[in-house]
């Protein structure tokens, strides 16, 4: 069995993108009426739905006096991959993604504004084609903004890998699942440029990290633009309704 050629000598990837191109992104805020904030986010064929509830009264267990606790639940639809598979709620991989998202937003949400309360973020992965974590974070940002929760800045996440000595932006499932491709997810606060999350799988030599990181950050900036547009669209729709 031959190994797949992830980046052809012509500079095209398996799906026809060049190394520095993102997949198509489309997103919308306020898609659910019952939630305080919600969003639907597509990046290529990876599709997620996020609902945010809160700030609301916490369960006694997670009550803190000086700030709000963030609670993230991540679920994967059984039909999200081509092979139907049911995952249990305690699946460690799901918990890992949830905890990454939680950590990311603990730095960006101004939790001190909401003492003695809880913010719930429910993420549902509807279709999976690589880049789960980045889409989850981007969609959650949009939903949090939609919920009107005060944050320091947007949190924009993007992945980048390293294939055949070339940094590659926004890996899809095929690229991500080849073992030797390092898979770096970075979440930045675009205005300050601060990094909220940096996570990598597989190995990458430290001398190459900078290039890959730079590309991923570049990708985050594009995503910021997209998210901003979606927020504006949602706001102008709301304004139209009000007027």
């Amino acid at each position, binding site marked *: 069995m*031959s*190994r797949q*050629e992830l980046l*052809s*000598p*012509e500079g*095209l990837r*398996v*799906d*026809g*993108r060049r190394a520095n191109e993102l*997949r*198509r992104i489309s997103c919308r805020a306020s898609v659910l009426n019952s939630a305080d904030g919600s969003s639907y986010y597509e990046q*290529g*064929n990876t599709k997620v739905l996020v609902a945010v509830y809160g700030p609301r009264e916490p369960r006694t267990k997670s009550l803190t006096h000086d700030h709000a606790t963030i609670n993230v639940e991540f679920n994967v639809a059984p039909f999200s991959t*081509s*092979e139907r598979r049911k995952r249990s709620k305690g699946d460690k991989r799901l918990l890992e993604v949830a905890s990454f998202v939680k950590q990311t937003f603990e730095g960006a949400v101004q939790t001190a504004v909401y003492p003695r309360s809880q913010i719930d973020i429910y993420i549902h992965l509807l279709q999976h*084609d690589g880049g789960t974590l980045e889409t989850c974070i981007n969609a959650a940002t949009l939903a949090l903004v939609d919920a009107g929760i005060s944050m320091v800045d947007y949190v924009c996440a993007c992945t980048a890998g390293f294939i055949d*000595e070339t940094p590659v932006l926004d890996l*899809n499932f*095929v690229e991500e699942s080849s*073992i*030797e491709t390092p898979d770096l997810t970075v979440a930045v606060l675009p205005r300050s440029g601060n990094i909220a999350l940096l996570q990598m799988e597989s*190995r990458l*030599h430290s*001398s*190459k990290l900078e290039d890959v990181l730079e590309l991923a950050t570049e990708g985050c900036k594009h995503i910021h633009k997209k998210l901003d547009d979606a927020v504006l669209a949602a706001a102008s729709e709301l304004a139209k309704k009000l007027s």
Partner: protein
Amino acid sequence: MLRNKSFVKRTRKGNIVRTVKEHYLRDDIACGYESCKHPVCLSARSEAEEQGKTLVGDVHPAAPLSASPRNSTQWGPHYLVPDTNAFVNQIDILERPIINNVVVLSTVLDELRGLSMVVYNRVRAIVRDHERRWFVFSNEHHRETFVDRAADESPNDRNDRAIRIAVKWLGKHLEGSNIRPVMVTNDEDNLRKAIADGVTACRMEECLGVYTECPELLDMMGSVNITDRSGTDPNWEGYAEYLSPVQIQAGIKASILVQGTLQIAPYNYLEGSIFAAFPDGKERRVLVIGRKDMNRAIQGDRIAVQILPRSQWRKAPSAALVDEDEDAVPDAKAEAEATQAAPSVPDTDKTNEGRARKRARVAGEKLANGGSAATETAEVKEDGEGHEELGEFVKPADIEDDSQDGEPTGRVVGVIRRNWRSYCAFLDPNFAHKGAKASSAPVSVSVLAMDRRIPKIKIRTRQVDVLSGQRFVVAIDSWPKESRYPHGHFVRALGDAGDKATETEVLLLEHDVPFQPFTKNVRADLPPEGDKWLLDVDRDQVTSGKRRDLRHIDICSIDPPGCTDIDDALHAFRLPNGNFQVGVHIADVTNFVKPNTAMDKEAAHRSTTVYLVDRRIDMLPELLGTNLCSLMSNVDRLAFSCIWELDQDATIVNVTFHKSVIHSKASLTYEEAQNRIDDPSLNDSITNNIRDLNMLAKKLRKRRIDAGALTLSSPEVRFRLENDSQDPVDVEMKALKETNALVEEFMLLANTSVAAKIYEYFPDSAMLRRHPEPPAQNFDNLQHALKPLDIQLETGSSLALAQSLDRAVLASDPYFNNLLRILTTRCMMQAQYFCSGSCTPEEFRHYGLATGIYTHFTSPIRRYADVMVHRLLHASIDRDAVYGSELTDKIKMNEQCDVLNHRHRMAQQASRSSVELYTNLFFKGKTVEETGYVTQILQNGFGVLIPSYGIEGVVYTAAKDAATPSVLEYDQDSHALVSPDKKSEIRLFRRVRVILQVDDKPVSANVSSMRRKLSLRLIEPMIVGLSIEVEELNALRAAKKTKAANADDDGKIVELVAKHPEQIQTI
């Protein structure tokens, strides 16, 4: 624009799932024409220039298609756009440098990847060569050339349509430039549709017709669709149909079939075997005998085999086939049968019926014993069809090791993967006579491959007259079941048979040795200073402390005379505490060969330097190998040093590794070093160092031998070549000195220390070398032959084996022990490179050296494994070392190991063949009597090793025509060949006298002379009907005398000197 590609596929588990992938269509894909004015193409070119891809020669890498391509009367200036089948079938033609300006569509490339990775890689290699001006047009991602599959369209039809549309688009795009893209296809339907669409298209023949200066291109056309009935003889009923891939997979899964790679026996091209994994987890050999049962499988093919009924299993050892014409035998099947029912099989007189009866009895017994006999008999009825009275096919699960029925034998029911390559061949001499009259019209001829294991190949050619007496390359296209032999086509001529240059090229090609000169890209990676390169303390990081300055130490190198690629140098001195500091310094090749450069890729591809008798095929360009990396004396050279502190008993106190710079004080030969040790008057520092090293080496060696390292032996010779003609004038055995052992000992120590170090840092991806323990069965024949001599080999461990080898001495024959070691070597497994992540630590053992872990570190100039190990070691000792996935990717490393093992084996075989070639040249026209030893017993002959020349050949006991019975018959009990009157016998280790001859005439009606081998004839013991007659012998002796006299006149040395058997280590 976005399209989703959706398709249904089967997963590894067997579930059927739907996969959806994104497929982006773009409008920024350029056409590749070098002066295209279209804005997209303009910007693509300027973008490439910004990225630093400037002109290579006068070719633009982003747009290589020439503005003035080949002009034909029919199409004017044009580019070729071949379809997938054109590539698959005609890659040999397209590879010719004359074919340039070709557009390769990505549709075609995708299809090629699915069909044949070999062809795909060859196409990619051509595209990389900018001079060829090939261009890959990514039509699948181009907005205007992408096509969706229509509802009723097969994937093939869709791809054909995609190709047509791409060609049409290109035609329109290039309209202004007057250049026409021409689609090349041999698919009639596609051709018709293309023309209807207004696309310029043609057949391969038409397109080659344009190249009038190269008429042989037409000869090279693969004969894909030839239904040549002329060669089919009426007695030939054709081969059995293959099972479908699905049936094969199901059969293997259900353990009805076994799979393996077909290996044809070197002495008998009608006997193949596979090593197959059986359901009980063991690997066993399954024989496949005869053309019919081999069913169109060729050496190296991966095949599925069904095991034949036990009654058809073979019970005797292999027979050697005299190199005769297969057609002379009435029917291949009959021949196979004859091989099976050989006279020596104890129960030959039993008819098939008798066997059937016997089995019926066995079945009856089983029935009486209860068990699952009932179901078994049912299976007999079901499976036994076709082999009716012979019994049931055996299920792999039912096979045990201690079966009395002989070796499992099977028949090929399907080919899982073909492993066809191109073959060096020559025209069937029997045909040459008939074909001599032929005109320039193409005729169909049979050619014989140089590799005996390959069947005859039928080709069509217009140049029969030119080809007879020549060596040339052919490729196999297909093997339809109606045809006894495969169909192929001519690729290129190599030169006259018997010519030294041609024969050397043949042996390089046959052993898959890449021997082309280094390309421009590779040479571009050499240091720009060339041979003016000098140490620069800043650039080479001496000042920064990364590289240790060891120039003050007295370092010397010890190598064979005339060695120009000096890999290693040594030093030793006493430390104040009484211990010794010993350093091994290895050329720092990786300082010059950086990963993923063209030079690195080429070296990885070549994997090893190949040493032939008269030339050396380098792994690295000469500038590096014999100059900048070579640790010559009195110059500053970069090295990778391994430095130990050893105590008086040569136990390692500690070890460190450094990149270093050294200044060797002397390059010695083994002999010079030995003389220094022996000469008491010398007392300089280098001599004393060597003496210390020698003392330590002896201790190390003793410890190693005590641990069970094996001293094995192989016959090796060296040629003394005449200077101008490079004709061999003398053969001598390689001599061995104490100093050889000295160097070897420290190299082993370095390799072992490095292996441990890199394994510590890269437990998953260290490149190591292991030597598996040979299974006891490997020694069966040898043990059997040793029994009458009252010698027993202990094969339990390498230590036991080494000790029993030491004890095995015959007072009557001093050479016996050596011979035994040679034969023991042949029972060993091959040592191999592997990636540490792919084996358990218990499997790391090196049996021959009796070490737990081992690798190759000491010869980076001539072995690529060592280059990898250097990089691994550097990354292990230097935190700042920059490395990428090449050192950490287990899969890539495993792939590289496979390449290394393959090349390594091939290189060894190539050197051996080269020695053989020169031996034949040496014996050309000579007749020599020599003493030899029997090393192998075959059914109709025996192998003889002649120690003084280190050559081996077969003496055939059976006459060429099968009518006369064999003089000697095989006796299974004693594993010997015995004459009917029991008076004379030939068994292993027997000393014989033979006469050696080589046929002078390279072109004769004799196949064996075309394949050129030494023929041996027996003198002693005298066996009537087999040994050479006294009169003839005398005549030969007389002839030899006169010849010798003549030769003396020419000033050539005829007598042979120096016959030292060499003892070597299998490292």
